[in-house]
């Protein structure tokens, strides 16, 4: 058993944990554009200070958190009824219904976001649709706005929300709801007092699975967002690739990591607890 | 007496703060069909698993055939087990399941094939050799599990609630089959059950367990006629547990009590009223409320009396068995 643990442990230790040590080391260094790599090692907190005092970066943090949170909420509001419907469907149909939810996830995210680009473009199909139904005379473009980013994140991460919700709802004993009804609870009350609390682990897992990666999203804001919406993932990318400022980019990474450590630990504990329950 | 095939010395196994098996001493002799009888949580299944090697004891020793097997892992013990759920390998057919143990031993394919065929004949499943477990009925699966264990010719076969998953009719037939096989092959069986009727009818010797301890060992007749404590008297069959003058307790079996219309000429005679009759086919069990307030169960083999009737109960002076606890 020790060998079994050691194998992935060593791999992850080298390729996952060790790199973070390097990132921290670089983050504490200073930018040295002329050397290769362009870092002068040292012990400077200037990068971190910059990230938390400069208005531009502060705004990026807040926007990222805000967009991630809102998108997670929307994904929950859409994903919960979907998961509920699948869990209540006839057992024979469930695999197919699930497969239909998961298929987009197996398709390249890039392709899917690209698909939205066409839809949301100026005079794109969404535009045409809104004009045709008379909902808006001159909608302008959706693409390039925060709306588009939200749309993109919900679209990309919806399967991540539906699957854990489904897993929890599927295990729900319908006998409990029957007992609640027998004791006089009306359908809405039964849902709020029995189903919802019991599906909480699924809700937490789903929200974390959407929120955590969304904070650092890059592709979606890059392709669907505009230049005004600066998310922290893009900051990292720009600092690294466009400005060549490795220490600053590393500092962003470290800050992101620290920010997400809490949710990450929560998610890991969730997983462990759900495994214990199955045992 | 020949050396016991199994000797347990001071065997203890704890789960957290609870001792599932608490200082058990036991000898099982070769050729016995030994039953471990008790309610749920008494430790009988844990004891069986200790014997098989799936649990390691916290204290004590396990000797099999005179050799200390206490720390030995299950695949090295000369013991085989028939699981309550049968544990048939779903990805193998019947023949492959039965031959699994022989393959692990390295037995030559030709010899293994012969032994598997023999084992299947013994349990009357020869025509099912190519079927998968999912295609078998409960009773057939059990026979496969039995054949799989027997084909290895173990010194000792452990059976975990062998009849629990079967329906009533099948249970009786299987009961007979197991006893027949055990006698014919001269094997030693140790079986665990919560059904005292099963234990009484199948075992040559049995042990009653409670709270991790063995509270009585003996032949079925001994345990029935001379239970060691109130718990055992009550657990096995029906018993009236009465206090006699002098402060002692006795166990009085219903079939030792006779019903009379008038006061019988015996020292122990009591008047009462029949409040309920449970018809069992070969006899009826009458619940009699005595005038002194006690309730007695008496056995009646005909329709002599009916509900609501006033009766007299009488029994011989030595009909009750004094209990030590």
């Amino acid at each position, binding site marked *: 058993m020790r060998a079994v643990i050691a194998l992935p442990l060593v*791999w992850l230790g080298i390729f996952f944990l060790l790199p973070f040590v390097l990132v921290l080391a670089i983050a504490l260094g200073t930018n040295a554009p002329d050397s290769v*790599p362009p870092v002068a090692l040292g012990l400077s907190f200037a990068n971190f200070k910059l990230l938390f005092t400069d208005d531009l970066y502060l705004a990026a943090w807040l926007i990222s958190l805000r967009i991630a949170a809102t998108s997670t909420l929307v994904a929950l509001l859409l994903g919960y009824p979907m998961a509920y419907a699948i869990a209540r469907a006839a057992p024979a149909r469930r695999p197919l219904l699930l497969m239909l939810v998961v298929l987009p996830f197996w398709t390249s995210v890039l392709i899917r976001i690209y698909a939205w680009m066409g839809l949301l473009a100026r005079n794109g199909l969404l535009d045409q649709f809104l004009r045709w139904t008379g909902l808006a005379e001159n909608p302008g473009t959706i693409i390039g706005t925060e709306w588009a980013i939200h749309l993109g994140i919900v679209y990309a991460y919806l399967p991540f929300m539906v699957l854990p919700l489904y897993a929890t709802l599927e295990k729900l004993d319908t006998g409990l709801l029957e007992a609640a009804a027998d004791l006089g609870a009306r359908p809405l009350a039964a849902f709020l007092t029995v189903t919802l609390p019991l599906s909480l682990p699924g809700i937490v897992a789903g929200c974390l699975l959407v929120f955590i990666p969304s904070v650092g999203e890059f592709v979606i804001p890059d392709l669907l967002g505009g230049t005004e919406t600066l998310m922290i993932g893009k900051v990292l990318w720009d600092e690294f690739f466009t400005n060549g400022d490795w220490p600053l980019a590393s500092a962003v990474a470290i800050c992101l990591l620290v920010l997400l450590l809490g949710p990450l630990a929560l998610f890991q504990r969730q997983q462990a607890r759900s495994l214990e329950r199955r045992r | 007496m020949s050396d016991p095939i199994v000797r347990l010395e001071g065997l203890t196994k704890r789960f957290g703060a609870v001792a599932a098996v608490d200082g058990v001493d036991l000898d099982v002799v070769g050729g016995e069909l030994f039953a471990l009888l008790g309610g749920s949580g008494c430790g009988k299944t844990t004891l069986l698993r200790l014997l098989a090697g799936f649990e390691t004891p916290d204290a004590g020793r396990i000797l099999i055939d005179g050799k200390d097997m206490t720390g030995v892992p299950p695949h090295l013990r000369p013991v085989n087990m028939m699981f309550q759920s049968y544990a048939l390998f779903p990805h193998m057919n019947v023949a492959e399941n039965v031959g699994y143990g022989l393959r692990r031993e390295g037995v030559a394919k030709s010899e293994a094939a012969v032994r598997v065929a023999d084992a299947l004949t013994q349990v009357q499943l020869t025509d099912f050799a190519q079927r998968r477990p999912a295609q078998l009925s409960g009773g057939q699966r059990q026979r496969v599990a039995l054949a799989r264990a027997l084909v290895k010719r173990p010194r000792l076969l452990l059976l975990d609630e062998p009849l629990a998953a079967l329906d009533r009719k099948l249970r009786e037939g299987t009961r007979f089959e197991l006893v027949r096989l055990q006698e014919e092959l001269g094997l030693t069986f140790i079986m665990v059950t919560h059904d005292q009727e099963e234990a009484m009818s199948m075992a040559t010797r049995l042990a009653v367990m409670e709270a991790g301890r063995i509270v009585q060992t003996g032949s079925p007749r001994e345990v029935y006629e001379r239970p060691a404590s109130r718990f055992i008297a009550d657990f096995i069959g029906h018993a009236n547990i009465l206090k006699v003058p002098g402060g002692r307790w006795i166990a009085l079996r219903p079939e030792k009590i006779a019903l009379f219309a008038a006061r019988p000429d015996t020292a122990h005679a009591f008047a009462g009223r029949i409040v309920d009759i449970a018809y069992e086919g070969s006899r009826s069990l009458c619940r009699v409320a005595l005038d002194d307030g006690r309730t007695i169960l008496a056995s009646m083999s005909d329709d002599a009396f009916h509900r609501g009737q006033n009766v007299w109960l009488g029994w011989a002076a030595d009909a009750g068995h004094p209990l030590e606890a």
Partner: protein
Amino acid sequence: MRGRVRFAIAALGFGYAFLYLPLALVMIYSFNESRLVTVWSGFSTKWWSALLANEAMLSAAWLSIRIAVVSASTAAILGLAAGYALARAPAFPGRALFGGMVIAPMVMPEVVMGISMLLLFVGVDRMFGGPARGFLTIAIAHTTFAIAFVAIVVQARLADFDRSLEEAAMDLGATPWATFRTITLPLIAPAIGAGWLLAFTLSLDDLILTQFVAGAQSQTLPMRVYSSVRLGVDPQINVLATIIVVVAAGALIVSGWLTQRR
């Protein structure tokens, strides 16, 4: 009761429409005569022929497939070990940390993983003079995050596994290794296969992590798509999208079939 289910079904329908409408449109427009995605001007397969003649795209696709096979296979082995350890190992100090390390790559923002792995490879390159960023580094990066997905699938399968089958095997004389080889492994193989397929698909589609750790020479398919897409809508991408959707559907169906048969 009825009303609630009807609402849920409506939500499900809306959800599916939301998920599939964009993809359906892209697939339809791959047959569009004109370049535009806004106007349908007639049926044509010219973009299909164009893509299949596009050398750059094809070589990128080939590179991506090779990387995906290597990383999925490596991740399958490591993920099997990790999933087995998580499901079966008794509590040991650092178990929570181990569990966290296995699962974190799955949720972590790719930019964070990207920069950290790049720095690792740069550091190693400076210290040992190699390896150059390319096939190997991309495969390593993909393997690292794929382990989490395989581990979760394996762990879930083992949690449902009937342990009495393993006990029966040992009782019949199988050593722990023989038990794993003849009983456990055959029965969890479908789950491992499903995990492999998932890892393969994710590797094929990965962009951000790849962008960080790839060298100047290596262009994977997503990288090509990205650089093309930044410039606007490209009908050849529509064709590619259609192919990817069909391949993904096929992989998903196989995976589902693997995990359904018990």
